[in-house]
């Protein structure tokens, strides 16, 4: 059942419509649990689109196994997605710094408040992100230390490779998940893949995780495949590698692979002089869970994140 969450008139003969697809069991008892899947807060993050498609397709193919309510919000920043704009076009605001919003506020604030209001009362919300155009992430859940006890059990059900307990920007105050957690809705931020691209295998992996968590909540009664056990960041120390020169980054390693201290992560090269400006060396042994995708770097650009203590060195 497709519903308009909010519709806002635009200046010239158009409205901006944020939609959701509500999937209901064949028989309603009034006691169903509800899960919300949100994606597209950032207009340049597309990985969630395939997840929504595949999730809805599989539920509809086995609708008799649905025992709860699934609300799917595939594009909550539709203008950003259409215009390949991370932020909300015309306002130039990051939607994920705008929650919980304000019903009486301008379009961005009103939209944020309406989305929160629509989600409130559900048993679990999952906000799917796809990094940005600069760095590639392995499927991971990010949770804050404050909500560790509540959210870690859900995180382990989602078939992700990694759970990062960290106050990163995806879960900062003013974000959707922080606002919902503050309002009593357990909410997880998932990061995976890279902006402006779609990684089918990551999508399939997460869909399996969504069915697994729905089964745990009693929303799904069908079979689910075995899921992987994620590494949790508290198992080791996360090391960040930033560029110390500007130029073109050429990686020497692969994503989500082990690396040993002293290995070459990659070079920052100068295409004008044909020289290497910086050879980046791994500061520790571990596993690379974030890797630079966009080659142009300035001094300070994030190159990689390594979870130390997890490799075979």
């Amino acid at each position: 059942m497709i519903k308009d969450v909010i519709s806002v008139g635009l200046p010239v003969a158009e409205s901006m419509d944020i939609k959701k697809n509500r999937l209901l069991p064949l028989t309603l008892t009034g006691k169903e649990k509800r899960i919300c899947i949100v994606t597209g807060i950032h207009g340049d993050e597309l990985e969630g689109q395939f997840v929504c498609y595949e999730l809805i397709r599989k539920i509809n193919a086995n609708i008799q196994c649905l025992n709860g309510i699934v609300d799917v919000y595939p594009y909550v920043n539709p203008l950003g997605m259409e215009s390949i704009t991370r932020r909300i076009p015309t306002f130039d605001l990051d939607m994920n710094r705008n929650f919980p919003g304000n019903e009486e506020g301008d379009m961005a604030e009103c939209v944020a408040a309406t989305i929160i209001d629509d989600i409130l009362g559900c048993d679990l919300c999952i906000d799917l992100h796809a990094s940005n155009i600069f760095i590639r992430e392995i499927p991971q859940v990010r949770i804050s230390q404050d909500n560790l006890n509540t959210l870690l059990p859900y995180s382990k059900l989602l078939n992700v490779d990694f759970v990062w307990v960290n106050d990163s920007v995806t879960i900062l105050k003013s974000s959707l998940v922080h606002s919902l957690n503050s309002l009593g809705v357990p909410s997880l931020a998932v990061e995976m893949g890279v902006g402006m691209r779609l990684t089918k295998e990551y999508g399939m992996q997460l869909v399996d995780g969504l069915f697994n968590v729905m089964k745990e909540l009693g929303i799904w009664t069908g079979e689910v495949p075995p899921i992987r056990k994620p590494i949790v960041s508290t198992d080791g120390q996360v090391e960040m590698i930033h560029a110390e020169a500007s130029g073109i980054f050429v990686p020497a390693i692969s994503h989500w692979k082990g690396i040993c201290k002293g290995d070459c992560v990659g070079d920052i090269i100068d295409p004008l002089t044909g020289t290497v400006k910086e050879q980046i060396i791994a500061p520790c042994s571990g596993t690379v869970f974030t890797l630079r995708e966009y080659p142009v770097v300035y001094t300070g650009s994030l190159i990689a994140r390594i979870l130390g203590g997890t490799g075979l060195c």
Partner: protein
Amino acid sequence: MLKETIYTLDAPFRANMNIYGYTFGNGDKSACVVGPTRGNEVQQLYVCSQLIKTLAQIEKNGHILNNHEILVIPCVNNFSVNVEKRFWALDKTDINRMFPGNPLGETTERIANAVFEKTKGYNYGIQFASFHTPGDFIPHVRMMETGHQNTSLANLFGLPYVLTRKPEPFDTTTLNYNWQMNETNAFSVYTSATDQIDEPSARQAVSSILRFLTRMGIIKYNCHNGFIASVIEEETLLPIRADVSGIYRRLKNPGDEVQFGDTLAEVIDPLEGEVISQILAPSDGIIFFAHTKPLVIQNCVVYQLIKRLHE
């Protein structure tokens, strides 16, 4: 006047970006002034340039008082100004959301850190900033209510209004907020314009800084006393919204006094030309902020009104 490079960033395809600081006088760190952190803040850049020009003359005349040092950083984000992008052109981050910065962090965190470290410890910090919503303001001094703010000091700029604001979570990464947290008396000065030059309000802004520096005993400069400011809390401003989207026709400007029921603006059907909405004043008062874009989206704040205030 001493011109120095505060921070240099090398770039893959462009010349180095140098952030310059201009120091006047010497001695105690008395006041620092910081210009645009965003690439569209051309008015703020212009104001800083005029301030540097005037301070150079004041110093030449021997009118920087003993044991006082003034630092002006006229532009923090040359790269974005030069390519006419509001935010950092590569990753769209906002330098004024990166303070106090991090010397080992992302590019804009490093820039913010360099500026913060250089400006930390001054008694007074003045930033020429712009608001995230495009529009025109009455010139004013803005302060955050951190518990360290001093509106009496803000009054010494002689601008017509001082506005205080309760900080939101995203405000805690601004330069103003971090100055206050580090015991600098911090002020943000807003002029009428941002991405175009408005000479009268630029002159007013330069005068307001010189007036403040004079009153704090940092320089000797004869100027008009300016205004005794009305102090306003941001939450008392009355937002006035458009009820429909369309082409926007503004009828009132910042500073205008309006009466209850006055027509402030019209929204016009963009295809058929008819007026589809009239935006009326819900109260007597003075226009503090006015939307400037030619189009408007429903619910957008088109004016902020200082209620029941008269000229």
